[in-house]
């Protein structure tokens, strides 16, 4: 055993091992995705895989620096770090360069940094700081709307920690994907006592939204009324809470008709993404449906063992756009097949669940909450990224953690993860 004074004492080896595996596999897949026989050397820094290697080495240095820093630093400076990054995310709109309609990049020469990637760990720190030593109050027993609202004030305040940057990133920077990621913090709030009804309510709205886009509002309305009557007459059989149920039904019907209105207010490309996913209207596989279709073809053609490394025809000849970034999972699916794909999925989920397990063993609320923040963010990225490649979720351009090409993304994830590794390593030293 190394000495207790070593900077690396107590770090969770399994987590670090999975991290390293993912980073290396990601790099190999970026190489495959961008592969070009003219520049076959994997260290060629004029190519994306060469650059990715530099990002990776940089990430390792960042990881080491984080491990060297005292864990107390992150607890003490949680709010200043958060404030700094929030300001950066607003400043970027004025200083940053516009790329593809969004202003989210600080650019210095060839190197760009996306502050929206980094705010995730800052929100995690700030949220952990805010929520430690307090329970989110449940307003179940409180009568009166205003009063119950007031009782739950710390819940609302906690939500502001990620809702404010979410709005900044969505509205100011126009980065829908990176903004949506921040909703993952709801999972943290849930763990810390958020009433489960809020989550069910959100889920309910999403379900109705999707259903009312897929079927005509009339059908949904009629079937809701049918279900409602069935429920009243055969399950409930007592009409004590009748007003409440009728109100709920009325709300759902409003939502059904409102959904179409909401849908119509989406931006055209977002609308087509929804259409592609739901198979609404006529989806042209050469235009709006192209990405998802080609992604599915790439993955689907992989079979059990895949076509072999660098043998993927879809991958090699660039049929899938954005393959080295948002659609990197296609390379895995095509070249490594079903086996490779489930290994990648398994690694990611093992990492996430490992983090939750570690979080739960923390003595300090701070470390636990931060751990949940890391797990939630990773979960959201993995689920949405792979889900869209598999055609299960709409196309939302967010990277696959540790895999996708991009310096900001890999650095941000490294910082996010290693702060937790450091907190965990110091768990015996940090009091709650």
């Amino acid at each position, binding site marked *: 055993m190394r000495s207790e004074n070593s900077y690396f004492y107590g770090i969770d080896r399994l987590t670090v091992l999975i991290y390293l595996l993912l980073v290396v596999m990601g790099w190999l897949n970026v190489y495959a995705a961008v592969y070009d026989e003219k520049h076959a050397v994997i260290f060629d820094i004029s190519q994306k895989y060469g650059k990715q290697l530099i990002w990776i080495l940089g990430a390792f240095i960042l990881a080491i620096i984080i491990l060297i820093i005292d864990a107390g630093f992150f607890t003490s400076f949680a709010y200043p770090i958060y404030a700094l990054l929030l300001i950066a995310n607003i400043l970027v709109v004025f200083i940053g360069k516009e790329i593809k309609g969004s202003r989210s990049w600080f650019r210095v020469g060839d190197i760009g940094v996306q502050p929206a990637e980094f705010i995730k760990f800052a929100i995690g720190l700030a949220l952990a700081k805010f929520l430690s030593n307090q329970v989110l109050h449940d307003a179940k027993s409180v009568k009166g709307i205003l009063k119950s609202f007031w009782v739950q004030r710390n819940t609302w305040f906690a939500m502001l920690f990620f809702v404010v940057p979410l709005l900044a990133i969505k509205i100011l920077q126009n980065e829908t994907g990176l903004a949506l990621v921040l909703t993952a913090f709801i999972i943290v709030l849930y763990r810390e006592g958020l009433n489960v009804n809020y989550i069910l309510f959100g889920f309910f709205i999403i379900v109705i939204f999707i259903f009312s886009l897929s079927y005509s509002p009339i059908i949904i309305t009629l079937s809701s009324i049918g279900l409602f009557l069935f429920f009243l007459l055969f399950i409930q059989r007592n009409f004590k809470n009748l007003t409440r149920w009728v109100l709920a039904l009325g709300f759902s019907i409003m939502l059904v008709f409102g959904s179409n209105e909401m849908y119509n207010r989406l931006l055209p490309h977002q609308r087509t993404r929804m259409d592609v996913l739901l198979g609404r209207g006529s989806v042209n596989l050469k235009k709006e449906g192209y990405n998802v279709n080609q992604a*599915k073809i790439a993955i*689907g*053609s992989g079979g059990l063992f895949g076509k072999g490394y660098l043998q993927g025809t*879809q991958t090699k*000849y660039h049929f899938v756009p954005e393959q080295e970034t948002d659609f990197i999972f296609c390379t895995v*699916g*095509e070249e490594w097949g079903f086996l490779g794909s489930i290994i990648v999925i*398994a690694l990611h989920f093992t990492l996430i*669940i490992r983090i939750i397990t570690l979080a739960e063993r923390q003595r300090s609320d701070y470390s636990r909450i931060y751990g949940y923040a890391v797990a939630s963010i990773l979960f959201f990225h993995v689920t949405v990224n792979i889900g869209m490649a*598999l055609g299960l979720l709409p196309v939302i351009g967010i990277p696959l953690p540790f895999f996708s090409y991009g310096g900001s993304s890999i650095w941000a994830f490294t910082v996010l993860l290693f702060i937790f590794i450091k907190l965990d390593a110091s768990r015996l030293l940090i009091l709650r």
Partner: protein
Amino acid sequence: MSRNAYLIGRKFYIISFFLLIAVVYTLRLAYIQLWDDSYDLAAKNNALRRMVEYPFRGYIIDRNGKPIVQNEPSFDLMVTPKEIQNCDTLALCKLLEITKTEFLKRIKKAIQAPNSPIKPSTFEKQMSFTNYARISESLFKFKGFYFQKRSLRKYFKPVAAHVLGYVGEVSKEKALADPYYKEGDYIGISGIERSYEAELRGKKGIQYLVTDVHNKIIGPYRNGTWDTLAVPGNNLYASLDIDLQEYGEQLLRGKTGAIVAIEPETGEILALISSPNYDPNSLIGGKQRNQTFARLNKDSTLPLLNRALQGAYPPGSTFKLLGALIAQHDGLINRTTVFPCRGGYPPLNGKPKCHAHGVVNLPGSVAQSCNSYYAYVFKTIVDQNRFKSVYDGYNHWRDMVMSFGPGHHLGTDLPYDKPGNVPKAEYYDKIFGKGAWRPNTVVSLGIGQAELLLVPLQMANIISIIANKGYYFTPHVIKGIGTKHAIDKKFKTQHWAAVTDTNYYNMVIDGMQQCFENGTAAAEKISGIIACGKTGTAENPHGKDHSVFVGFAPRHHPKIVLACIVENAGWGGTWAAPIVSLMMERYLTGKVVRLDKEKRIMETAIKVPVKSIRKKRSA
């Protein structure tokens, strides 16, 4: 920590939810990667371009090793519209000898569906070698154009068009139904080309090239490990004697009709002639073929009809041979049997009529072709005491006749043969009423008239049976395939007719020999060859009688069997008999000494009334 201890349980919900997603994704992956293989196909279509190398079609060689059909390279000019760059249209038009409007029209066609701007389509089909040589020299200047090598058929002699058939572009329906063919591929459409398509076509070679998203060719896929070379088609060894075929066609020149020659001991078809015919070379190549085909199709003499297989004729007196065999088999007549003939069939007041001849026994009745004799023979067969009704008797006669081949497809290896017709008893019920007809009502069947119809191939096959004294091999035109020389077993199987006793055959053969010596074909005797034959005159409701002759030679160990019909040429002895006799002489001796006869026949044309042909077209 203790304050929110009750929340610890929530970690299980969270973990369960995460794991649920992982499971759903795994199942989804399993579905699209392991279960649904449409994606695999889509990937191949996406990135791989199949370049087809067309194989050489197999040659066809005659029984003496003379080539009949070979190939000539031809070149299709292909264009991929998307790849055209800085094209000097004017220079290209000049090179191809087309106008600019024509050029633009073709490019437009190549862009529109079912073609595609990113896929190669044919710009000009089947260019000759000289044009190819001239154009390919400067084709490199025109990006997007390239030559695709194909091969065209080449016929050494302008003969045997009906037997050989022709090759043409595959139909849309066939291309959809059979995965081997793509639109624009060639396929045998008739004759040998059709029935032996699978042997002749060979195997297309396929080269897989990888393309990128812009359809640009990157290189061979997996270093060409999946590529296959084109395998040339098998050569076919035809049983045809191409010289005899040519000679027969010359003899039938200007006349309408058919000749079938078969080697009886094998069933190999030596010649199969249908007249009028056409030069098979005129049905090669896209444009030329379409024009010729349209012309031939409109021609009122029906040159596309293969009369040897599809022309159903009344066999006339040649059918008497079967009557003689069946009656002997049933024990009703023997060599010495005599029937009255008073210029016709006495029970029906001299109908059918007969010509003047002496009293004839069985062989004599064949040699003199006595109508009355065979009317009696027919009546006797149907009216046998053992039969309870005319139906039993008639059906017995019909079964016996059909065992010699008439009334059904012979199963030859050439497509589209007709079965002919031996009427069913029900047919006469319809005409005369149930039970209201007697053997004498339909007695003209006995002399090969009435509704009885045979195709010339069936006539020749009957003579094969007689020459073999009881059996035949299914007539076929291909005797060997590729290097193994193996043909379908069904052509090597003896089929026995219902009459098997050699003596009965000898009796009939005696008569057929007399036919050449002092009978109806006495004028066609070939010196040095004992030939056997039988004349026929098929009454024809649409005009003059058809002249029919069947025969074989030599009598012992027969080498060739022949059946010939010349439409509207009158009595069998005048046209069909000399043609058969000349063919025999030519085949057996290798030359013809009766040059006057040959000249007379070759130079005479016999017109066929249009009405008679219309009838055939509608039949």
